[in-house]
């Protein structure tokens, strides 16, 4: 076995030094009736070349090289090459959580840089070292708001990613915590402010909205914050598309921001690993879940970094911890840190502007097709938009697939009232050619119909 650094002779020698006759003697504590006396029924040992062939074949079976207009919480952006060169350095890849600070300063300083960048981007004071993803981060943010306020109800916008809302429901189910959903304005696709105003009472711990929201529309955060704060509720803003922060005003009025940082140089990888992160105003620090890296000094006065405020965490506070989270998404956070360093202050804005331009062009061209309309109007969007088609989406989707194009996600799956509406996304990697081709395929349906 190529990963095991021992010869049989060495094994024998070690057994002899232990004083065991055979390896099975070391397993003799396992009751006989449970011992597995046969081979596991799994594929035989494969050569490295066979493993690579197996996964390459699997990759081929997936639709590779398709143009894609999919977004909805997972975004395809260009990933600079140096991200993978750097995160594959064994010292990052094969290191553990930096509990032994003296020999993990590299990871710790990188986390500190990540925390700083997230705080800068979101307009919050502090950010943690990462959460599993945007969905669990949003759920943890709601729980955090409940601890801060001592209240047990929350208001959630229906324009928050539907799967995030499902996760939140799972997290809250057994805690006697209730949520109320706020509809969206049918015209603008933004949170229905009148409904919000009514729903937010003095019992509410938090208002959770997403911006850009699930339809790609940017919410009026200052107005929402005012409604929340008037009743003493915290405002949590979920951000599923982190690149938007290059050009969209950060939610500085929020108390907590829960962000999915996948867009910062993290591969789609069929939905994970991604990188959630929670950022907040400083006064809520003690109620934050997850690890935090902090700056300090060593005995000789050198600057150094340590994991800090650990008493919030499960390994110390056990059942009273702020969360049960232990393992996080550190290496993915490192990818995001490198991505943000590559683009930097100017680049992130330029990148976001390219996304804005691509989506504006795509929305215009696709909605210009007869039988296709742009749904929701009057509020600013980032790089996603909703199209309403006269033709049933499954029909044109198949025609697009035949042309090696994947169209928008069908919204009817989560919003029954949005039948025949699809959510499209155009990031900087989508080309004009692909957009024009998609428009042509959409138009073709009319000819046949």
């Amino acid at each position: 076995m190529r990963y095991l650094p021992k010869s049989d002779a060495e094994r024998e020698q070690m057994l002899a030094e232990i004083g065991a006759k055979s390896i099975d003697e070391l397993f003799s504590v396992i009751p006989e009736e449970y011992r597995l006396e046969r081979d596991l029924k799994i594929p035989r040992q494969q050569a490295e070349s066979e493993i690579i062939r197996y996964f390459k074949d699997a990759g081929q079976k997936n639709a590779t090289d398709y143009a894609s207009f999919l977004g909805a919480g997972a975004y395809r952006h260009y990933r600079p090459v140096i991200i993978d060169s750097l995160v594959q350095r064994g010292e990052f890849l094969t290191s553990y959580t930096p509990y032994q600070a003296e020999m993990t300063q590299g990871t710790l300083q990188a986390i500190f840089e990540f925390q700083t960048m997230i705080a800068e981007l979101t307009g919050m004071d502090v950010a943690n070292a990462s959460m599993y993803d945007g969905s669990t981060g949003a759920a943890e943010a709601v729980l955090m708001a409940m601890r801060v306020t001592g209240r047990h109800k929350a208001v959630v916008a229906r324009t928050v990613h539907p799967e995030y809302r499902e996760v939140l429901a799972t997290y809250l189910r057994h805690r006697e915590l209730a949520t109320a959903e706020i509809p969206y304005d049918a015209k603008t696709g933004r949170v229905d402010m009148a409904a919000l105003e009514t729903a937010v009472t003095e019992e509410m711990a938090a208002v959770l909205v997403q911006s850009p929201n699930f339809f790609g529309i940017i919410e009026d955060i200052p107005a929402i914050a005012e409604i929340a704060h008037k009743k003493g509720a915290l405002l949590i803003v979920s951000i599923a598309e982190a690149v938007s922060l290059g050009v969209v005003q950060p939610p500085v009025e929020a108390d907590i921001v829960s962000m999915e940082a996948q867009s910062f140089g993290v591969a789609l990888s069929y939905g994970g690993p991604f990188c959630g992160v929670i950022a907040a105003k400083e006064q809520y620090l003690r109620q934050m879940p997850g690890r935090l890296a902090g700056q300090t000094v060593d005995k000789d006065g050198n600057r150094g970094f340590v994991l800090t405020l650990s008493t919030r965490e499960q390994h110390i506070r056990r059942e009273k911890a702020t969360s049960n989270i232990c393992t996080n998404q550190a290496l993915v956070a490192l990818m995001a840190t490198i991505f943000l360093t590559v683009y930097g202050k100017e680049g992130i804005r330029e990148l976001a502007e390219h996304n804005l331009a691509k989506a504006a062009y795509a929305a215009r061209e696709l909605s210009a097709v007869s039988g296709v309309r742009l749904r929701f109007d009057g509020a600013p969007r980032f790089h996603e938009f909703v199209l309403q088609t006269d033709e049933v989406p499954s029909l044109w989707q198949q025609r697009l697939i035949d042309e090696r194009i994947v169209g928008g996600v069908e919204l009817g799956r989560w919003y029954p009232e949005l039948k025949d509406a699809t959510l499209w996304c155009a990031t900087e990697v989508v080309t004009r050619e692909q957009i024009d081709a998609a428009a042509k395929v959409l138009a073709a349906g009319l000819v046949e119909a």
Partner: protein
Amino acid sequence: MAYPTNYRYTKEHEWIVLEGNTGTIGITDYAQNSLGDIVYVDAPKVGDSVTANQTFGSVESVKAVSDLYSPVSGTVTAVNESLKTTPDKINEAPHETWIIKVELSNPSEWENLLDAAAYESFVSEETGA
């Protein structure tokens, strides 16, 4: 460190001293010593009520959290705000550094508490064990 004889103590290592009907509460030298460098004190707000033998907050070192148990029942009348920035005062002068003041609702609870001698022998039993 000597345990002041005008104080009373709990087996959870809090001390209390009475002035009229107001009790001033802190943690003992033994408590701060076993906890180590204190980095954070989580105290209730003025107006909150506390109950004898129930937790009212916690003190934290870098790697441990210790719940605070109230020696008496009553209403919090003052909280030592200076501990927010200088929790280390507890380490330096545990018996002079108070955490909260409480207006007693049941003054007879005072009688159930340990006096300095009883507390000291309790502590030496604990460390002996």
